[in-house]
């Protein structure tokens, strides 16, 4: 009926649109931008977290206090020192590392800061390192005989105190006791920064027990001899610890199950945000419909003239629907660009907080974003285009 010229004609019409009609595109731009930002951020987050769990290793099992819910970090002490030996007795277990954690207040000169104390057994240092903890940046790691020595992260050393840097050999007072910084940990990658928590003070297990009352470990990391044994070891840990505790007051997690629960949370978040973005797109659709209705009204005489010189109703319909589709597509394209700008911006901010969030421009998202908006534009254009196509030519030509 009509050739591709229709796109050029539609483009000519859009180019001359008033500013008002571009403003009505805002809903579409924001909606599509939100969708693009959302997808690229959550993809980036997934990648980052996956990388983190991978660096923890697939042959590691975590035993933590609390019931089913995966991310409970409440400091409830339901794990016992004796659990270490119980788990060590399970075939396939290579080593069990206990983390003796508590919170404290640290003081340096006149500065006060909250500290997250983690005690570990220096004899098991290599296992900790295998799980991505304790990568040394400066100084040395702890030794079994150390009691008044601590490790802190490089970024904490640099940024925690206003106008002052902490460094190796400086002394910090924690709970009234002086400790000397012997090493700085490199926390430039995600796994070692533990989601941006930088105020971790590492001490020996003995120090944790002596000065901080952390008799029992808060959590255990279990290394198995072979990745394939993970599931059977998990089952045995569950049954043996439950027998020892008399109830299931702990939870056992693997890198894989952690990743799964993370992805579940992420999925729910995505759905909620997607619904919010859809509302924006609906607002955008109404905007396009409104702007097209105005355009049809403004161009009534033109429509009459086009019909007089031989345009059929269907041609008029096609012209206006194409225009609406192109308008939607313009909004979508702007939205995709804006969406990526926001995503890269957030990624840059996260990067400055030591959280590497990779953003990749995904052609599939670009195509989907642009086609959704074109589709929405077309649908919103149906009513105005029909109104145009059904106009009586004589009345249209007489329209003032």
């Amino acid at each position, binding site marked *: *009926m*009509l*050739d591709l*010229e229709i796109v050029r004609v539609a483009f*000519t*019409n859009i*180019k*001359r649109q008033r500013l008002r009609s571009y403003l009505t595109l805002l809903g579409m731009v924001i909606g599509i931008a939100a969708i693009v930002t959302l997808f690229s951020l959550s993809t980036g987050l997934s990648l980052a977290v996956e990388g983190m769990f991978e660096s923890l290793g697939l042959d590691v099992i975590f035993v933590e206090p609390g019931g089913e819910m995966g991310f409970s970090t409440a400091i409830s002490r339901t794990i016992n020192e004796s659990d270490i030996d119980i788990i060590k007795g399970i075939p396939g277990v290579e080593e069990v590392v206990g983390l003796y954690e508590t919170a404290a207040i640290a003081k340096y000169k006149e500065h006060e800061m909250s500290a997250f104390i983690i005690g570990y057994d220096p004899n098991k240092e290599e296992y900790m390192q295998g799980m991505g903890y304790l990568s040394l940046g400066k100084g040395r790691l702890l030794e079994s005989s150390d009691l008044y020595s601590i490790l802190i992260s490089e970024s904490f050393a640099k940024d925690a105190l206003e106008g002052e840097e902490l460094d190796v050999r400086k002394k910090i007072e924690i709970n009234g006791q002086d400790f000397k910084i012997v090493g700085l940990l490199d926390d430039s990658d995600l796994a070692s920064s533990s989601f941006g928590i930088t105020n971790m003070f590492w001490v020996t297990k003995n120090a944790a027990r002596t000065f901080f009352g952390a008799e029992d470990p808060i959590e255990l990391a279990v290394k198995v001899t072979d990745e394939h044994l993970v599931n059977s070891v998990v089952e045995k840990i569950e049954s043996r610890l439950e027998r020892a505790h008399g109830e299931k007051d702990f939870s056992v997690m693997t890198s894989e199950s952690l990743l799964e629960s993370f992805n579940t949370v992420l999925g729910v978040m995505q759905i909620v945000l997607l619904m919010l973005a859809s509302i924006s797109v609906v607002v955008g659709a109404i905007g396009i419909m409104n702007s097209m209705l105005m355009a049809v009204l403004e161009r009534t*005489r*033109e429509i*009459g*003239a*086009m*019909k*007089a*010189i*031989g*345009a*059929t*109703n*269907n*041609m008029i319909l096609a012209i206006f629907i194409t225009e609406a589709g192109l308008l939607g597509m313009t909004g979508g394209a702007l939205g995709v660009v804006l969406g990526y700008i926001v995503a890269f911006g957030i990624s840059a901010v996260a990067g400055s907080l030591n959280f590497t969030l990779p953003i990749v421009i995904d052609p599939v998202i670009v195509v989907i974003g642009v086609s959704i908006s074109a589709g929405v534009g077309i649908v919103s254009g149906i009513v105005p285009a029909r109104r145009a196509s059904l106009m009586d*030519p*004589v009345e249209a*030509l007489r329209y003032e």
Partner: protein
Amino acid sequence: MKQPILEARNVFKIYDMGKMKVNALSDVSFKIFQGEFISIMGPSGSGKTTLLDIMSALLRPTKGDVFIGGKPVSKMDDNELARVRGRTIGFVFQTFNLIQRMTALENVMLPLWFQGIAMGEREKRAREILERVGLGDRTHHKPTELSGGQRQRVAIARALAVDPDVIVADEPTGNLDSVSGEQILNLLDELNKEGKTVLMVTHERDIGKRAQKIIHLKDGKIIKNEKFGRR
């Protein structure tokens, strides 16, 4: 006997305004033959525009029928009417009715596009016709960048693009000064001499007299048929 290009047979156009009925046309019959130049004259509200619109298949009569190339309009659906209009009628309006956002060239190409003529051919023909009406150097001007007389010449070029059987013009000089009005009328004269059939509405006798025939309308009825010899 030759077949007329356009023929109105006992045409009525009644506008039903609820409380009252307006008889815009009452029992109008007339024929237009190939190569004729006919003017329709009459006071304001006498039904000139209505008759022109009905003759050019833009408006359906309430009663009676119009034949275009022998085919009755009453038997055609809206799509067929659009097609017939697009091929056999070339419209020229008092207010030009060009598409403001398009250049002169694009405006002239538009009816060819509606006829499904290929892009290259469209452009070639449109250029030739703009040349013919003396606007070869204004092809890329938008209507707002042209004078009234030039706009009307673009409109005539647009009407000529599909090489229609009849040019219908509703007060084509109504919005023009006398000099550019004269140029437009001369152009219509020339086209008629080249064989185009022209049907023109006017209310100025001087302009009407350029035709070979004047149809006088009053209150929707033909009250007089005036004939002049070929000038």
